[in-house]
């Protein structure tokens, strides 16, 4: 299992927010993360970097600097004042040693460790495509972008990427039967 890279700082039955240990070291949009023990699985649906203290807004500091790296090098305090957080949509959990694509009975406790799933774990989890329903139902404005990102991420983790996209396409079409335009847009972008 990979090293934890974040910690849960807020959670409910559907959604959790985690704070990364290192600035900008968040899992990617659409990535599958495992939280706590027994594991709760969630798909990253939004990443943001913001001031640790909401009362201290970030100020522009780069005037005259040649590059972004130079800005950070010249202002080492920045890394202390900022933090990277991400929201993840819960899509399953571990039950009696098996992955199930159901919401857990209780949300993961605060300070639970969050780690990115290894490709092998992603491949196992995405054998079942019921989780697409959670993602499609997560609501605008990002739902479809998260679906696209998640499918691309999963396809990269699997040896049968093309076939996976086909199966996922059918699962999504079954979920969104009345909206062919949406299905077409998701599938088109999942394969770019």
């Amino acid at each position: 299992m990979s090293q934890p890279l974040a910690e849960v700082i807020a959670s409910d039955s559907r959604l959790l927010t985690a704070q990364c240990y290192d600035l900008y070291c968040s899992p990617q949009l659409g990535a599958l993360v495992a939280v706590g023990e027994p594991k709760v699985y969630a798909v990253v649906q939004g990443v943001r970097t913001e001031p640790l203290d909401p009362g201290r807004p970030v100020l522009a500091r780069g005037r005259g600097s040649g590059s972004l790296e130079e800005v950070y090098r010249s202002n080492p305090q920045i890394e202390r004042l900022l933090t990277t957080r991400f929201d993840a949509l819960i899509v399953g959990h571990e039950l009696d040693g098996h992955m199930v694509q159901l919401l857990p009975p209780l949300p993961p406790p605060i300070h639970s460790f969050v780690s990115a799933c290894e490709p092998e774990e992603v491949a196992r989890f995405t054998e079942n495509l019921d989780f697409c329903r959670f993602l499609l139902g997560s609501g605008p404005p990002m739902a479809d972008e998260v679906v696209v990102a998640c499918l691309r991420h999963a396809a990269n983790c699997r040896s049968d990427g093309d076939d996976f996209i086909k199966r996922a396409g059918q699962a999504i079409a079954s979920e969104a039967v009345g909206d062919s335009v949406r299905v077409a847009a998701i599938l088109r972008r999942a394969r770019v």
Partner: protein
Amino acid sequence: MTGGFFTNGSNGEGGLPSSLPMGTVVGGSLTEGVDIRLNPTGDILIEDVKVGTFVTIRGQRYRFFGVVTDLELNSSDARLRHAPPDSNDPVLLEAVSGTMAYGVVSVLPNMVLPLVSGSDERPAAAKTVPSHFSPAFPATAADVAAVFGQEDDRHFWIGAPLDMDTRVCLDLDNLVRRSFGVFGKSGTGKTFLTRLLLVGILQGGEASSLIFDMHSEYGWSGQDSDRDRQVKGLKQLFPSRVSTFTLDEDSSRRRGSSPDEVVKIGYGEIEPEDIELLKDNLNLSDVAASAAFNLKQRFGGNWLGEFLQRGGADLGELADELGVNRAALGALHNRLSRFQRFPFLEAGNRHNAAATIIEHLELGKHVVLEFGRYGRDLSAYILVSNLLSRRIHERYVELKEAAEGGQGSDPRPLVIVIEEAHRFLSPTIASQTTFANIARELRKYNVTLMVIDQRPGSIDSEVMSQLGTRITCALDNERDIDAVLSGTSGSRQLRGVLARLEEKQQALIFGHAVPMPVVVHTREYGTPESYAELTARVGARVAEVGRPVETREERVEREIDELFT
């Protein structure tokens, strides 16, 4: 079928794999049929399903046996019509096909079968529909056999259902119990179908048949114009069971047929009603045709012979004597003079062709009356077939009434086969023909009709309504299709099936002889194998009635012997 729970095996070469559910019931009604949404798995595509194929639906309490009556492409999103997925995008096409865009098969559930195979319950007419989401399967050979019966003395194998290598059988007893019809436009295989049906009637042994063989194609041999070959007629297949009669001995001999009897008809046998029937063919006015009745009144039985001997001024005098219009009587004389060209018509009344035919029929023989070259003259065909049928019908009525009075046994059921039936049974003349009477009386007097026609729309609707079983090849005239389907439940659905029959060797059968409407690919006729199959099965019932009948030669020989001893 064997015991145990029903399992779907393969339904034969070329058919749908019957182990796979094809879809699920999603709606419908008993009258309109149920809608089956094809499964999204794509194992069975809509292109695999054809109108007229059989389907079983496994409900909660019964298995339903039905026929596909329509196919529809449907979608859950109307926008797919306006913005269809890119046809070059197989992933998107695959995702949308079967999920958002899917096929719906309309199935008319006709029969219910017991849920458990091997049960004593017989298939029965469906009076309910399967529950929502019941799975549907392509029907198996066992299902078809359960519904249409196994081939035996009573069930005649007529053909195979579409895309199945199994046998659809006709219930011969039910077939001959009421009049029935074979329809189809020219060149669709009516003649071959009729040959098969005649073999079936012969095998069934329940009835005799009398075939008015207009084109001389049922008795000794016929022509298969598609394959450019000769096919055997009934006499070649069942020499001891079939008697061939001919009106045209020369033609029969030329075709290699040696007829059992040559039919001669005396003028005295022709009735004014026969002339009335030929009114259109002879282009006679009503007045001229009805003058025949006056002649009968004046001259009695041999009215035609007497009338034809008259000529010139005699006719005028006769017209005055009878009180009929001179011109009308002249026209009648002129037209009836044509009869003198028919060598099978002879002066006097010494022949009794009908009695000879009846003699053969009562001995269980099947009689084919070949018209030879006279088959091309519709007047001759109508005259002879109506005249003989009238005589035979009268005789059957006598026999039947005698049997009812306790004198003698019931006459053997008879099927009279007529071609170009609309010429006899059109609404204007149907009331005057023996055939319309036979059709209306049903089996009261043990005589029924087999009507062969390509224009069923021109047959009197009352007669059509009396046909128990209708067997129809492809038809394309709306009026004919309407006529064939009139009075049939589910006719709207059958219309779609009928309209899509192939031009050859396919027929839609519905009515008493089959438990439900069925499209069949008719069995082969004309190959040595087909002859062997057709002649192999001669039922026990046939053996009982297979007594020999004295042929013409034998009779002449006997009479000569009797004369000199």
